[in-house]
């Protein structure tokens, strides 16, 4: 066990000392909100935060990423042949990630790393990233991690966990990766009984603060076609703008688009985040669109998260309960409310 207690200053100094071993991402104050940024960019970490506006998914799965490059120059003997773009897979760490967002990575991993296919870029980044979590001392009223299998101090998907004890952090190693990270850190004193007790009390207090608990127990047994044909979708979707805010901020939305971009005689094949809210997402070349209408797209998003995923992976819902979509939806579409409607739906 390498569990240690660090003074807050010492902890940040320790992280700075790991700069050559890891690319370290930390929460940084960015305008009105927080964002995960590399420590190397000179911004001071701010661990006294609720959660970042954008989930940290871009650290492993960038919003826009070059996959391949190629020449379109006929004089080039290799013209039109795709070559993998060079990428950095060296070790990184996300320090201060909330347990819900670590859960998010676990959920996305099921999509990108499955028995049939492995997404090489995701798999390598996921493998080389250490997740050093930060327990949530003050969950928001919109948080519902405990309803989806997590909790403000849930350790399952983390490599290490920091607990904010006021003037110092208790840092627990949880996996080999996490222990390895902590072993490289300087400073700190072995964790004492008092620190564990304090942490336990904080965890208990935090879980009491979670006030939202949308029920999910009946989702599995609901019939897909019943939920699909449920009468509430038009109503749920009425206010929706069909913007991509919820999908882009979500730590568990993984859908993407692949596009070619050409600059002169040089081209790139690029992967961009995409959103099921956009009509273009499913538009056929023929002009036919199976999800032509707004309510169909809204239904897809919630059915995917709360039914299709549940059936496909038998591992809970595709939601980590971080509450971002609730907080940032410009028209207040609330997944907690929809989850409850789906869960409690009685077919006629």
């Amino acid at each position, binding site marked *: 066990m390498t569990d240690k207690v660090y003074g807050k200053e010492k902890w940040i100094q320790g992280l700075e000392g790991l700069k050559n071993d890891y690319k370290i991402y930390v929460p940084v104050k960015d305008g009105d909100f927080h964002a995960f940024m590399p420590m190397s960019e000179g911004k001071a970490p701010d661990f006294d935060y609720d959660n970042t506006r954008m989930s940290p998914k871009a650290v492993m799965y960038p919003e826009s990423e070059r996959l391949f490059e190629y020449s379109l120059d006929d004089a080039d003997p290799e013209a039109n042949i795709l070559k993998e773009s060079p990428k950095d897979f060296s070790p990184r760490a996300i320090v201060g990630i909330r347990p819900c967002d670590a859960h998010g990575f676990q959920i996305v991993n099921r999509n990108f790393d499955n028995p049939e296919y492995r997404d090489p870029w995701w798999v390598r980044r996921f493998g080389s990233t250490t997740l050093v979590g930060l327990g949530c001392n003050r969950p928001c009223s919109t948080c519902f991690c405990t309803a989806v299998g997590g909790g403000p101090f849930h350790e399952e998907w983390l490599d290490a966990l920091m607990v904010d004890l006021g003037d110092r952090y208790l840092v627990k190693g949880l996996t080999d990766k996490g222990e390895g990270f902590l072993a490289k850190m300087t400073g700190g004193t072995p964790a004492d009984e008092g620190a564990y007790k304090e942490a336990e009390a904080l965890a208990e207090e935090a879980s009491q603060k979670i006030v939202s608990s949308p029920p999910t127990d009946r989702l599995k047994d609901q019939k897909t076609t019943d939920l699909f044909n449920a009468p509430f979708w038009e109503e749920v979707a009425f206010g929706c703008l069909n913007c991509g805010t919820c999908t882009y901020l979500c730590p568990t939305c993984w859908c993407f688009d692949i596009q070619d971009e050409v600059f002169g005689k040089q081209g790139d094949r690029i992967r*961009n985040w995409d959103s099921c809210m956009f009509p273009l997402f499913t538009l056929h070349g023929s002009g036919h669109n199976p999800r032509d209408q707004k309510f169909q797209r809204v239904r897809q998003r919630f059915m995917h998260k709360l039914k299709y995923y549940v059936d496909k992976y038998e591992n809970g819902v595709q939601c980590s309960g971080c509450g971002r979509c609730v907080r940032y939806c410009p028209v*207040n579409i609330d997944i907690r409310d929809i989850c409850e409607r789906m869960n409690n739906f009685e077919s006629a």
Partner: protein
Amino acid sequence: MVKYTEKIQEIAKRLLQEEKVDVFIGYRKGTMPMMNQPVLITAPEEAARLYWDNFCGLNLCNYLTKRTDRIGVIANGCNSRNMVTHIIENQIQREQLYIVGIPCEGMIDHRAVMRAVHYKEILDIEQNGKTFVVKGADFEETFEKEKFLQSNCAVCTHRNPVIYDELVGELVEEQTDVSAYEDVEKVEAMDPEKKQGFFTRLIGRCIRCYACRNACPLCYCPTCFVDESKPQWVGKSIDPTDTLTFHFLRAYHCAGRCTDCGACERVCPMGIPMRQFTKKLNKDCLELFSWEAGLTLDQRPPLDVYRPDDYNDFIK
């Protein structure tokens, strides 16, 4: 506000009961503070769901586009001006609409409130006319509404609805001594390089979610130019050139049509001051054509008409 809510409920109930409208569009109270949701009701007994307060900053005209039924809808000044534009542009018929006019004293900027309480979680807001009380788990603070208006509301000179069939209350006094374009003048004074830098910084956070476009009642094109693939006008990755192209082209498409309702800015999840793109064009329309969008049903927006006798040279 409470008065308005009751009045809206009462009118909606009556209109649906008397079958003067098929549906009624308004807001319902949101599940969190400072957030309300556009709602459509079809039965008189649902009228109790309707709600109005200082956080109804979307544009309900957005929900009228190409509907074919008879619609009751609430509209403050800017929303009603967009309805005028919608009627002129044949997106809806005047006869289909029963407009319940709301004399408006401006919306509160929810981001300014969050800043004022240092981003502590807000659990409740109590609105009392000129002041409002913000409550959190361990704090309670009172603020003056006037100091927290959305930036577009602070400079609004058309608070009363332009067209309506009925009002929920007395017309309010219009603001007169506002200088609406101070920010634009600052940008105008910059040299081209600085301007480029200003706008590039502005969109630095853009995630291309298109909330601004989708919240805008003017953006009703069946296929937006950014979604065209044959030819593809705009790249899909996050190259700043593409992102700037999107925002500039969209703004130009709204020139002479934008009512400065602020919906684009309100919905932006990244907090980009979207109005910086549209305001310059509003200012030009005012200065060059004495035009403000949506004030009259008798005239099309200046960039939407062709006249053989136009006095400008470029058109000949």
